[in-house]
């Protein structure tokens, strides 16, 4: 895999536990989450309507859209509760020297 696909998001202490940050890269928006067992990343826009998930609520392994309460599993991207029915894309994450990287295809 080409090394340049890993994009640095920021330091690990930039995200509180059970929370997320928005990360914009080129013309795309991502959400990067810190859960109890590590860091995860998904697309940053809800699949139901174009709203940023950065203002959503993270509970356990789930992100809930702030607009209409569609719920997604953060680790798998699965749409768990309507009105969301299309899954959210997820991205690999790694931590290196306290820095978070996500792999964008």
């Amino acid at each position, binding site marked *: 895999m080409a090394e340049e696909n890993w994009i640095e998001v920021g330091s690990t202490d930039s995200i509180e536990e059970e929370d997320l940050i928005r990360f914009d890269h080129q013309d795309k928006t991502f959400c990067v989450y810190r859960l109890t067992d590590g860091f995860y990343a998904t697309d940053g826009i809800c699949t139901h309507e174009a709203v940023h998930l950065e*203002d959503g609520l993270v509970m356990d392994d789930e992100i*809930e859209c*702030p*607009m209409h309460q569609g719920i997604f599993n953060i680790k798998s991207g699965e749409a768990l509760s*309507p009105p969301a*029915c299309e899954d959210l894309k997820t991205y690999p994450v790694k931590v290196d020297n306290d820095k978070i990287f996500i792999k964008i295809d």
Partner: protein
Amino acid sequence: MQNNIIILGGGQAAIYAAREIRKNDTESNIKILGEESLLPYERPPLSKDFLLDKKNEEDLFFYSSDVLINENIDFDNVSINKVDFENKKLFTKNESVYSYDILLISTGSENKKLSLDDNLNNDVYYLRNLKEAKIIKEIVSNKNQITIIGGGFIGLEIASSLSQLQKKVTVIEIGNQLMGRIIPKQIADLVQNTHIENGNEIILNKQIDKIIKKNDIYEILLNDNSLIETDFVIAGIGSTPSVKLFENTNLKLDNGIVTNQFCETSIKDVYAAGDVSNFYHPLYEKNMRLESYQHAQNHGICAGKNISGVKTEYTSIPWMWSDQFNLNLQLTGICDDYDEIIERGNDINNGVIYFFLKNKKIRGACGLGIVGKVGRDIRITSKLIEKNTIVDKQILSDQNQKLNKLILKL
């Protein structure tokens, strides 16, 4: 045990109930009887993204016909005009009979109509279903000056959409505020300002005395003798539960079909869910009837569980939203029974929320903000209401403090 389960009504509560029953019961026959020929579809976009051409008909369906086929859920497009609860039978107009062992009624609600002269009944349009939305969408494309009678959710959402289509919109509301049935005045006033800033005219405290048709123009005479000229009239003045079919039966009715917290009606093996049900809410210790997306879904699921033997109390905290212009309004709980109000934020760009407390516990909250700015806090508030706990008012009122703190303390 194999039962014949019939779901009367083909909307959101019906499809969620059907799928929930199938999850727990692979044996029974499940049949939905819908008056519209379409499979259950989402109604919220009809007044917004559908009018704005951002969503098409095919985007609206909850599930495709494949899902129903795979789960062995039947859907018949019929209109029932007689019910015999004693013999557990439903009859269509031409006397076709459907027999059931268990019946779920999810007939929803219907629009209240203005009392008008007979010759005007076809000149005022209402929006509840896809057919009506299509008609309105087509007609407004050739109209410029549009009047909406009723300043509730549906009227204001249409007003917002039509304004975005560059129409000149006037909203006439009989009450002294917009959305007065459930939305606190503080929030309603902020919504009103946004409509006015976007060019819509909002008229409060006025009744329609008469509508006069003059060629292609309507003159709307108000009770203060003022006159509004308009090309097209849409009314959204509230709705009533669809219970006509049951009026001369033993089914207990009172502002809808009276149900307990298990979706059970006064008649054995007959359940009701969604808009049509006036259900008992254990947390609020009273009956209530709700007309919302979340309620139709969750109440349908709860009925499905109870029908399939999974005894489940309905404890969902009411939640609803409205999208107008770039604003998202959300309400959780109930906001009309309180002894204290706490305000969080004062700028809709960052979100404004009013919390309604009774005995130091939150009973309801209503928030308004640019899309995305109030959802998280409203969701946390729903959880706080559900826990029925005394909250730290200082955190509620300080937008710099995250509401998560209150949940972590539980």
